């Protein structure tokens, strides 16, 4: 499970390098750090789900196909008294076990406290699990097939409408040209 997850936090002193972990390993070389951050930035934010079930700050999840990003805000603040979010980046495995969200919850909980040394309360972890379960439902291959078929039908209908409009315009143009030649 670990190999599908990456973590990114900024140092609280705003001087030390950001902590970036991929598949359980701290990334130290510039190239791999930059590659991972660029990959995270490539996930568009338009497919976003926010959850705020408790007084703690909201958890945000956004996803694109098999990739997802979770933003959670721990209780620690940086030297400038700013909130210091945690970014969790993951890739959904091809085969999703029933307990996937719970398993990811456990890995995230361990990484946040042991590797990142940050504090998220249990409510926040439960919210993360809820969001992951929603993501899992969306990723269900059966739902994907249904969505694909729906999109295909919509596309066919749009093309039909366009062809109808084109035929109308062609007819008008033909009548106009015919009248022109008659005159």
């Amino acid at each position, binding site marked *: 499970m670990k190999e599908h997850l990456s973590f*990114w*936090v*900024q140092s609280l002193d*705003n*001087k030390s*390098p*950001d902590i*970036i972990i991929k598949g359980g390993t701290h990334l130290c070389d*510039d190239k791999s*750090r*930059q*590659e*991972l*951050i*660029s990959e*995270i*930035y*490539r*996930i*568009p*934010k*338009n497919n976003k789900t926010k959850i705020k079930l408790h007084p703690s700050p909201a958890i945000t999840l956004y996803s*694109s196909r098999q990739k997802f*990003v979770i*933003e959670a*805000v721990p209780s620690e603040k*940086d*030297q*400038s*008294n*700013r*909130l*210091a*979010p*945690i*970014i969790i980046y993951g890739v959904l495995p091809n085969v999703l076990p029933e307990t996937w969200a719970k398993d990811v919850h456990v890995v995230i909980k361990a990484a946040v406290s042991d590797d990142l040394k940050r504090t998220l309360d249990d409510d926040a972890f439960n919210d993360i699990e809820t969001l992951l379960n929603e993501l899992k439902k969306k990723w269900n291959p059966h739902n994907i097939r249904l969505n694909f078929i729906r999109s295909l039908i919509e596309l066919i209908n749009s093309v039909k409408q366009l062809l109808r409009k084109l035929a109308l315009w062609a007819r008008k143009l033909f009548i106009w040209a015919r009248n022109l030649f008659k005159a």
Partner: protein
Amino acid sequence: MLPLIPVFIALSVGIGGGAIATSNWETIIYALKGKTIVVLGARSVGKTTLLKYMEKGIPGGEYKQTLGKQEIKRTHITLNNLNIRLKKTNDVSGDKAAYGVWKKLFKEADLVLYVIRTDRLLEHDSDMERRAEDDLKQIHDWIKEYNSRKQFFIVGNHWSSDSVFKNLTPDKIGDYEDRFRKLPVVKKMTQLAGGNTVVKFALGSLATEKDSDNLIEAIFRQVEK
């Protein structure tokens, strides 16, 4: 995959206070039309404060460290009774690990605003000096790689706690700016970004609404068509 979208200044409308002011602003607006802006800089120098001020017109506030994709919504700045409409942008992390993202934004930009803590450079803060030099070396490589001429601004942001800046009288601001420009690290930064003819300076503060307006105005007044 959606592209990262830097700030686009689309157009502006409005009425200035007097004839001369309106004329000046019309020139500025004309110069800004269609330009793309990117705001770069190390961590905790005020990039988000500048962008958020452009977005909401409210200085300061409690902000988060910028990690992940932070979108600045479509908005417009009101300066001197004129509205400058902006399209959405992305605020970027100040860590060196985000250089790849900076590069992409840099490539798409016409105006590059490099924000730096003026007070810390004047105090010869070695971390800030080293970081500024590293950033500008990267930018220097991108300038060479893209072989394109961009308008480059060094935007000096003084922290609200900087007593030297707070106690400056109008007749001393010029001396203060001269002292900043003569710093060896600033000279080096200028050279890396294309030299004195390319690099422009805007020094100020984002502590209050008035300060923020003045700083943004100082930048926009120097934009070339």
